[in-house]
């Protein structure tokens, strides 16, 4: 037995402690039943009858209990292993803390408190989760995300968040620590998979109430059976009654319920989603409306030049060349994509020499244009169409008559028009298009099949937004969105009863993230965003929201399916145990034994063995989750009813018959 397996058994045995069992009434009843059978064992041996039977049942019930606690321990250990791997790096970190007077002191990372400021140099590991307050740096986050490409994090932007254990590759940062030891995101996540401290989620709590009720019903059925049987002159055996009770109460779902919850959390963690509570994962399954930022989720981050459209009476080449020259010094991705497009359209690379010594005029929010002043005196400009039109007019030029139509056409196609001018001449327009992520349209189709409404949020104008929305296949869009509009939209959707999820990373997203039923913050986002959200994506991939929904649904479906299965199983068990219980006193009742089992003893043992073994047999279902492949609710219901309802009704018959045949030679 390996160490890990040994630990697992240890954990399973620890789960038998009364304080642990008290959390789960179904298993508590099994434990009491086990004790009763153990007590009946010496009595049986002393009376010379039924001692062996009592002992066998007692051991089988003990196995049932261990399977249940073992399932929980297994789920817990797997969850912890995942979380543990994520935080391994963190333990031995040291930090340089900035004291109030600006002095640096070396301390262990575990001594850092919320609000402390630490300085981190290039090549060092970041000692704690926090927010950059000074500086910008490229950071390798592979320890957290598994992705080794460096990412840029900068103070004062929406990308100011850093995680413990990630490595600063360049520059120096001052970081404000955001969590006390033991309260970091990962610590919270670990608490979610630790059975002992785990809080039950709302639907888990409600399901537990239902299971407790069913347990009470069956307890009543079995207890009242005793005087009723004796009234009609039927002797009942205590051990048989305990076996009947344990077979009837929902031990399958009762035993697997904690494991299902823990496994749901670990599945989220495997997707690098850190939930702050189990409720967040659960609620993800019920989301009705997804608010998705266009940039980064639906489209690749940057727009690219896709076309040059010249005004009438302007030839194509000058437009291309001016676009090329004006963008050579432009560091933005858009600028670079213009150069690429011009090259592809056959620009003479030698032309670049014309730009030597040119003055670059950077884009600003006021002028909304950029460009170069060449040494030859030529002024080349590109920018927002109305800004360029105004600039051309100011130079004494005339805006061509078809310019507005050109701009409108490009906008309608979902592209952003960038006008290009040389001095007094307005040459034409560059189309900057969003590149829609590959496969995203299929994702939205899946979401629609699941009944989830998608809303794209973008700062673009309505025309551009509607074109992109149509191409990507979202249900709705909000153009020219501000944080206030996002918040208002969330409230509106919630007022109509929908559960809303949204993704955000900026400080101004924080209110909307907090208002949303599921707020998913990017790990790269600001501290405010990460605190307001109830889930954080370590990969900082806004598309993760879709995975979150799937994980949530899976968690709920698994609970529902196994509850149905557990209940449906009972019918077959009645047909096994009732004849076994009464056949001795009323042989005519043997006709209820539809499976024609070997003997009452073997029949009851077979039922109890089935009842015990079904728990480990279903552990893979509990840990992996029941599949929620794209289907409407009605299809899902029909399929799950067929598999877990009808299947649960039928499966025990052949299985119990099989166990009975195997047991028969020994009784």
């Amino acid at each position, binding site marked *: 037995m390996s160490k890990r397996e040994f630990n697992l058994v240890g954990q399973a045995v620890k789960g038998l402690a009364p304080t642990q069992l008290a959390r789960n009434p179904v298993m508590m009843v099994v434990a009491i039943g086990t004790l009763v059978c153990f007590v009946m064992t010496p009595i049986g041996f002393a009376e010379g009858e039924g001692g062996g039977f009592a002992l066998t049942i007692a051991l089988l019930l003990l196995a049932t209990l261990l399977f249940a606690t073992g399932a929980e321990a297994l789920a817990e250990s797997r969850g912890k292993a995942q979380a543990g791997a994520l935080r391994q790096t963190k333990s031995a970190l040291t930090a340089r803390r900035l004291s109030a007077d600006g002095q640096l002191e070396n301390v262990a990372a575990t001594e850092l408190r919320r609000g402390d400021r630490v300085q981190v140099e290039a090549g060092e590991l970041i000692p704690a989760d926090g927010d950059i307050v000074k500086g910008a740096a490229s950071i390798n986050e592979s320890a957290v995300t598994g992705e080794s490409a460096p990412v840029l994090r900068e103070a004062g932007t929406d990308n100011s968040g850093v995680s413990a254990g990630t490595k600063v590759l360049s520059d120096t940062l001052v970081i404000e620590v955001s969590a006390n030891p033991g309260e970091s995101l990962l610590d919270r996540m670990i608490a979610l998979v630790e059975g002992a401290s785990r809080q039950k989620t709302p639907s888990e709590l409600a399901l537990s109430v239902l299971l407790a*009720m069913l347990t009470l019903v069956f307890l009543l059925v079995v207890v009242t059976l005793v*005087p009723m049987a004796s*009234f009609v002159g039927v002797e009942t055996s205590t051990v048989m009654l305990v076996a009947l009770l344990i077979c009837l109460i929902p031990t399958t779902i009762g035993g697997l319920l904690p494991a299902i919850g823990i496994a749901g959390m670990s599945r989220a963690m495997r997707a690098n989603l850190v939930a702050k509570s189990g409720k967040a994962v659960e609620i993800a399954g019920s989301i009705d409306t997804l608010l998705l930022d266009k940039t980064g989720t639906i489209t690749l981050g940057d727009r690219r030049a896709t076309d040059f459209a010249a005004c009438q009476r302007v030839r194509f080449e000058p437009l291309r060349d001016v676009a090329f020259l004006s963008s050579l010094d432009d560091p933005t991705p858009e600028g670079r994509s213009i150069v690429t497009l011009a090259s592809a359209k056959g620009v003479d690379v030698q032309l670049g020499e014309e730009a030597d010594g040119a003055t670059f005029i950077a884009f600003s929010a006021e002028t909304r244009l950029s460009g170069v002043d060449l040494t030859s005196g030529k002024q080349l400009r590109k920018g927002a169409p109305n800004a360029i039109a105004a600039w051309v007019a100011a130079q004494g030029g005339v805006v061509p008559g078809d310019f507005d139509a050109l701009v409108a056409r490009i906008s309608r196609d979902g592209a952003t028009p960038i006008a290009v001018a040389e001095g007094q001449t307005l040459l034409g327009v560059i189309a900057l298009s969003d590149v829609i992520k590959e496969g995203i349209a299929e994702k939205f189709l899946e979401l629609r099949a699941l009944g989830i409404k998608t809303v794209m949020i973008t700062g673009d104008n309505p025309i551009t937004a509607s074109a992109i929305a149509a191409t990507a296949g979202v249900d709705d869009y909000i153009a020219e969105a501000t944080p206030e509009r996002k918040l208002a939209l969330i409230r509106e959707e919630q007022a109509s*009863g929908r559960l809303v999820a949204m993704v955000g990373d900026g400080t101004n997203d924080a209110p909307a993230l907090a208002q949303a039923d599921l707020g998913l913050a990017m790990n790269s986002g600001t501290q405010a965003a990460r605190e307001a959200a109830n889930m954080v994506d370590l990969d900082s991939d806004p598309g993760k929201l879709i995975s979150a929904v799937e994980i949530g649904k899976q968690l709920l*479906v698994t609970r529902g399916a196994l509850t149905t299965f557990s209940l449906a199983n009972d019918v077959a068990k*009645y047909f096994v145990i009732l004849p076994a219980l009464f056949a001795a006193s009323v042989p005519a009742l043997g006709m209820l034994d539809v499976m024609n089992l070997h003997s009452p003893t073997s029949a009851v043992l077979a039922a109890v063995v089935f009842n015990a073994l079904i728990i480990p047999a279903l552990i893979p279902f509990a840990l992996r989750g029941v599949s929620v492949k794209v289907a409407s609710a009605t299809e899902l*219901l029909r399929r799950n009813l067929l598999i877990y309802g009808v299947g649960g009704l039928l499966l025990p018959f052949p299985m119990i018959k099989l166990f009975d045949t195997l047991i028969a030679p020994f009784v």
Partner: protein
Amino acid sequence: MNDVIAIYAVVALLAVPLGAYIANAVGERRGRLDTLFGVIETPIYRLSGLRPDHAMSWQAYAMAIVKLHGALIVFAWLLFMGQGLLPLNPDAIPGMPWDTALHTAVSFATNTNQQHYSGQAQLSHLSQTLAIVTLQFVTPATGAAVLIAIARTLLKKRADGALGVGNYYHDMTRLVVRVLLPLAAAVALMLTWQGVPASYQASHQVEMLDPQVEEVQSVPLGPVASMVAIKQLGTNGGGWFGPNSSVPLENPTPLANVIETASIMLIPVALLVAIALIANRRRLMVGIGAVMLAFSLVSTSAVVMSERMPNAALTGLYQTDAGLQGNLEGKELRFGTDLSALWGSWTTQTSNGSVNAMHDSFNPLGGMMLLMDMFVNVTFGGIGVGLIGFLLYLMLAAFIGSLMVGRAPELFGKPLETREMRWISLAILAQPLVILGLTALTVALPGLAQTSNAGFHGLSQVLYEFTSAFANNGSGFEGLGDDTPWWNLTCVVALLVGRFVPMLVPLAVAGWLVTKRSAPSGRGTLAMDSAAFMGLTAGVIVIVNLLGFLPALVLGPIGEAVTSGTGF
């Protein structure tokens, strides 16, 4: 068999227009009916000082029900004990013992009409008409009122929670005045026409044609027709005479039998139509109606088949080819086995409880079906409470169903949380707790309880008595000597819990849910009106009842059947 099918068809035909009328009569829109019935209703409101337009929270609604019923129980209890001193008592019937009077008062105030007394011999005309008949009108109206309150809040799309669940007195008064009274008057006239007595005279003393047994027979009379009408229509079931509708004075002709049988089922079915219209949920109600009809057909055909089999005790005593077929023991020859089986299964499906044959003498498996009808108790069910009970199971199914489609549990788009589930669970638990608990206690304490028979049939009798009380049915396995303090008091417990818990818990859930968010339904939400969900609900009903009561049934009717010698 054809007559059974014909009576099903009569009910289906009449229920649709009646349902539309009920929806119109109790709906919110004002119309001509308000002017017409205002003549009666306005003075009632003015005299009682009630404000019918004052909206109540669910708590206030429930409290009003509890207060009114508490007052009516006390009133009826005192009246039954003191009837010997009061007028309208031509046969000089003495007051009832306190425990029988209490049981009778509670039994009628819970729409059960379980009778531990014999009607014509132990109640005066005053008690019958003032206490019994009043309760026979108030209790079905209350069930329907709660159902309408739930329909308004839980079932109606975009219900406004701020307005509460309605006004109990308003709902109840309108149901009595506009629905029950006119309908009962029509049926009473038809029954009078068929020969059911309608008189305040004392018993007639009649000389026997064959004076060997008795020289003079006393034929008790009274305003019977008017009571029998509401007894049948209001899922009440408590007859004027001890043997209920098996006696010719209560059920004289084949036509009277058809009228009375159809009356059992009429309003419970019509309410499905009414709720479909009031809440605008046609597909849902068609689905629920289909499940109920399926249960009804299974039960009725099983009972019909069972009663066509010979009675094991009479094997060999008569020749089956002599025209006497089936189990005729305890049945009126004029009705035969089919019409007795139809009445028996309908009266237990709807929690009516009137009988035209003795259920105690049904073959064991026939008797078992009657028991199962009462366990389920939502096969159309009692007026209002049948559909309310169905909704309780539907809530359970919605909880499991939502999970199975990957959503946090919700009911009609509103979240079902721990508080709701705790009470729903409690309401479901109450049934096995009361029925099995009291049955076990009774058979465990033979000295206290006194059972009439030993063995399987004895257990069936005890089980039937408590099941009938909890299901607010009222029929009995009449071999049981049940007029003792033990039976009276334990049944009072079963009656009260069985009436108020399953009726008020769904009202509370509706009251809680109406203030919660309501997710619009779509592809991703559980379609409550889909065939798959109705299948799940039917499955939940069958499984919950089968798992709870199968062991008791094995020790009762099934044990009796397999040991009877005939096997059924």
